């Protein structure tokens, strides 16, 4: 008995991308989501704005699959970056040009522009890898298709030219601190890039391999956008698109157990006691939740060990401050919600903030990214704070939350002196809250750390890198699989392609 061609567990961006891909190829699909709305971690909210407040790398191919080809530049507003400086003369970064708010050019010798250009060049290369399954996942490395792709990638490396190729092969392995400070003086611009490289990560700017994260984040031409009508509206668009594609959506119900018979998937048992039957299940949750749903007896001992060893430490907290009115910035031109405010005055500052996280504390001088959002008639200042450990020493009690908020407010006072008086309400969402609400291990943004030993062929674990896991018919489509996190949807899309190929 079969109810659907495929069941997608989890309605985050990757679940949506996978479902839309399958459905557009004529498969009947159902999404099972425990929250009341689709959108997953990105759309997660309590009282205030959603967890994700900007769009980094939403892939055009995913948009096209969703039949949302009409999302155009009118619907997305590009966002400038304001690096908060202690002097009060902040730096505005727009299209890789950097200016002080009083109009002076920061990047007088053009080295920042050159650096960001280099990053986007590398990004194009990595994008090619991201839009496909990793090499060698067709069960054997020597499949013709893989070899062709490998050669094509080699060729595009070669086409960089000898010196550029050499540079790429070295840069991509470097730590972001050395990479930046080789070309830039340590200051707000270097601080900005090192903060961007390490956001969501449990690694500091001095950790080798962090240049990869930076390239990944700047992968699509350094363009940073927000949906013009707000993030919530954007997720509504996605949900509507999914419904238009005839994808069934069951919200507010947990997938309890993946039903397995004779080592093949038969369906999913839901928390309400019903069972949905299908021979194909795509799971977009983290691997530990997957392990629970499958049951350890259906996994190889080696697999369950690698799942246990996965590094999933969550390091980002969200603090939403509800304001009585908008503060006025005399020297910031244009709408204030078209800017993100970065507090990361130097690479050293970012590194120090990371240091405390290693020992189970958050830094008293935190690295944060903040945006202003308007919801109905409310004003919110919504901040992502980096290097806030899920395993806080002493646990996440009310006092710790209050303290985190105070630490943030104190550091933001550098650019909003009156901030404390403006706050009428606040909420602190810790990595643990994300974990609890969504079932994401450790509250990690990318489900598992995006370090060099957990990417590409090794993501999430070497044996699961083909989007396949455990019993026949079970697929992984969450951001713990290649290429990984950010609101991109490619993990889901790649997984769906894999399903289509196998069920042909």
């Amino acid at each position: 008995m079969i109810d659907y061609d495929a069941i997608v567990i989890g309605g985050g961006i990757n679940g949506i991308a996978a479902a839309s891909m399958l459905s557009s190829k004529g498969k009947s699909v159902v999404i099972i989501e425990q929250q009341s709305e689709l959108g997953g971690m990105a759309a997660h909210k309590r009282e205030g704005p959603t967890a994700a407040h900007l769009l980094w790398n939403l892939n055009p191919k995913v948009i096209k699959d969703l039949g949302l080809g009409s999302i155009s530049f009118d619907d997305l507003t590009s966002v400038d970056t304001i690096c908060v400086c202690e002097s009060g003369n902040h730096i505005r970064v727009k299209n890789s040009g950097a200016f002080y708010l009083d109009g002076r050019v920061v990047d007088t010798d053009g080295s920042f522009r050159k650096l960001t250009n280099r990053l986007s060049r590398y990004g194009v290369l990595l994008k090619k890898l991201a839009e496909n399954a990793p090499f060698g996942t067709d069960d054997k490395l020597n499949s013709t298709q893989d070899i062709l792709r490998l050669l094509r990638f080699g060729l595009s490396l070669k086409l960089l030219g000898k010196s550029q190729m050499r540079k790429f092969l070295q840069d991509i392995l470097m730590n972001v601190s050395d990479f930046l400070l080789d070309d830039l003086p340590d200051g707000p611009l270097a601080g900005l890039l090192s903060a961007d490289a390490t956001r969501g990560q449990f690694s500091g700017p001095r950790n080798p391999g962090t240049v990869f994260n930076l390239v990944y984040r700047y992968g699509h031409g350094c363009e940073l956008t927000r949906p013009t009508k707000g993030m919530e509206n954007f997720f509504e668009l996605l949900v509507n698109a999914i419904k238009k594609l005839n994808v069934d959506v069951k919200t507010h119900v947990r997938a309890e157990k993946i039903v397995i018979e004779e080592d093949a998937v038969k369906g999913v048992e839901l928390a309400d006691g019903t069972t949905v039957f299908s021979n194909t299940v795509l799971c977009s949750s983290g691997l530990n939740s997957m392990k629970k749903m499958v049951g350890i007896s259906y996994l190889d001992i080696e697999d369950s060990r690698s799942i246990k060893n996965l590094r999933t430490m969550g390091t980002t907290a969200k603090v939403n401050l509800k304001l009585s009115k908008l503060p006025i910035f005399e020297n910031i031109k244009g709408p204030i919600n078209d800017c993100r405010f970065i507090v990361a005055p130097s690479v050293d500052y970012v590194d120090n903030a990371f240091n405390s996280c290693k020992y189970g504390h958050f830094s008293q001088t935190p690295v944060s990214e903040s945006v202003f959002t308007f919801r109905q008639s409310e004003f919110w200042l919504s901040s992502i704070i980096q290097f806030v450990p899920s395993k806080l020493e002493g646990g996440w009690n009310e006092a710790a939350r209050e303290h985190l908020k105070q630490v943030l407010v104190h550091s933001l006072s550098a650019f909003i002196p009156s901030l404390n008086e403006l706050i009428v309400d606040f909420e602190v969402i810790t990595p643990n809250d994300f974990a609890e609400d969504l079932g994401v291990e450790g509250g990690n943004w990318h489900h598992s750390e995006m370090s060099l030993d957990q990417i590409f062929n090794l993501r999430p674990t070497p044996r699961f890198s083909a989007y396949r896991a455990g019993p026949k018919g079970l697929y992984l489509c969450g951001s713990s699989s290649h290429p990984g996190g950010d609101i991109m949807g490619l993990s889901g899309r790649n997984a769906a392609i894999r399903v289509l190929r196998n069920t042909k």
Partner: protein
Amino acid sequence: MEAKKSFDAIVVGAGHNGLVAGAYLARAGMEVLIVEKNDWIGGAAVSRSLNEGWTYSNCSYVCSLFRREIARDLELPKYGLQIIPYEGGASFTRDGNYLAYYSDHYALRREISRFSARDADAYQRYATAVMRQCRFIRPFLLRNAPDPTSVRPRDLSEMAFLIKRGYELGTKELQDTMRFWTMSIGDFLDEHFENDLLKAHLAGSGIIGTGLGVYSPGTAYVLLHHYMGDIDGGIGAWGFARGGMGAISEALENSFKHHNGRLQKGSGIDQFIIKNGKVKGVALENGDEFYAPLVISNMDVKRTFLNHVKTEALPEDFKKAVKRFKIRGSSAKLNISLKGFPKFPSAPQNASFLRGDMHCTESLLELEKAYDQWKAGEWSANPYVDMLIPSQIDPTMAPKGDHMMTVFVQYAPYELKVGNSRSAEHWTAERCKALSESVLDQISIACPNIRSHIEHMEVRSPLEIEKEVGLTEGNIFQGELTFDQLFFNRPIPGYSDYSSPVKGLYICGSSTHPGGGVMGAPGANAARTILQTQSKNMHMTGYAS
């Protein structure tokens, strides 16, 4: 002979790699001159007698990585080299316990079981995984790293060898290998073990000599760098050179001289003589000039090209890349003459592990904190120490009944922070003394009355090591062993074949592939490359060819 000014090749610096390169070239029939700035040879592989009756291996102190192929080719045993393997080691704790490490499998298993039965089982898997990686990497040590951007036949053939080796591993093994190479030693150990002390004991090898912490990606590979050696075929075994590490240099010198090589001590190089993009010879600080169409520098890449080559001889890109090469001083050294043998109260009388490497660190977090202090420009308050008393096995090191102790200390920054300024000049005698006090405090965990046994002590700060040995920042590897500086990226992308933009000028120090440690491989590889490309009728013969 004295008046001779022209040679076939000149090697600058008589470190072990310079001596190896020189010896191979001389053996192939070249007339070779080695110049050395100090009055003694050996670079960082030296035995010095700074206190009468005692001999210090005052830089490098133990031996394992030295390639046996080279020892055979250059007949080092014949010239007096004897390596004595040592047994095991231990980590001591503040509460009077210890974890001993034995090379005997069953003894080790029993010992680990004392702390965790699970870890005793896991050690099996751990050792297999590490050994597998050692076996994979060993053949690459005596080969050149291919330049992936080049289509020269020798690069292509090296690339083909790499691909073949990778392919032979099979998908699963290959993935494990990739993972191992990019991971941190802390994570790798966390995957296997639950006991902090065992993890701390094993983690040391992943950070020794580097500017990385135990949780910095890439440190698992550094572990390999300390495991891939062998003594008499025992992979991963370590030993002492009888008579101190200088014995290696001495044997190399004898072998070199046997092949009519000439050695000139006491004056360092001032400039490489370069005309029309070709090297012509060297000008020494004392005014002497020697000429040769081939000059091989044993100095690190920064020292060679930034200090001793006139800048106009080098392309802009190359200079920039050399400037960016990362060499970070992170370690210091104590050499101690001991009166009598100090007591280690927690260890049984005459325990075999006292003859091995001893440590006093109890957890990975302690090591990570030590690293954080180094990042901030301080030396670690609780430094990682790797201490040995070689005179127990090699009686030539100290008078009868007395002992010599060598203590490797990590982390100590090159640019020390005092107030708001960071500078190497802050390493004054008082601060060296203060550093030694921190170290002695740490040693006291294992050996509380160490201070009362000290007859003489040499404290070597990174600055002092730099000044005497010529290692930039006192870094023992002549450059960080991070993956952006390894293999084809070492030292500079495009120049991993020991050559430079100056025709005839080569480098053969540890800043080239495969990197640091008293290995000799960079020297041998450089010599092979030179003989292949620069000489028609002379060839490299022997095991390392």
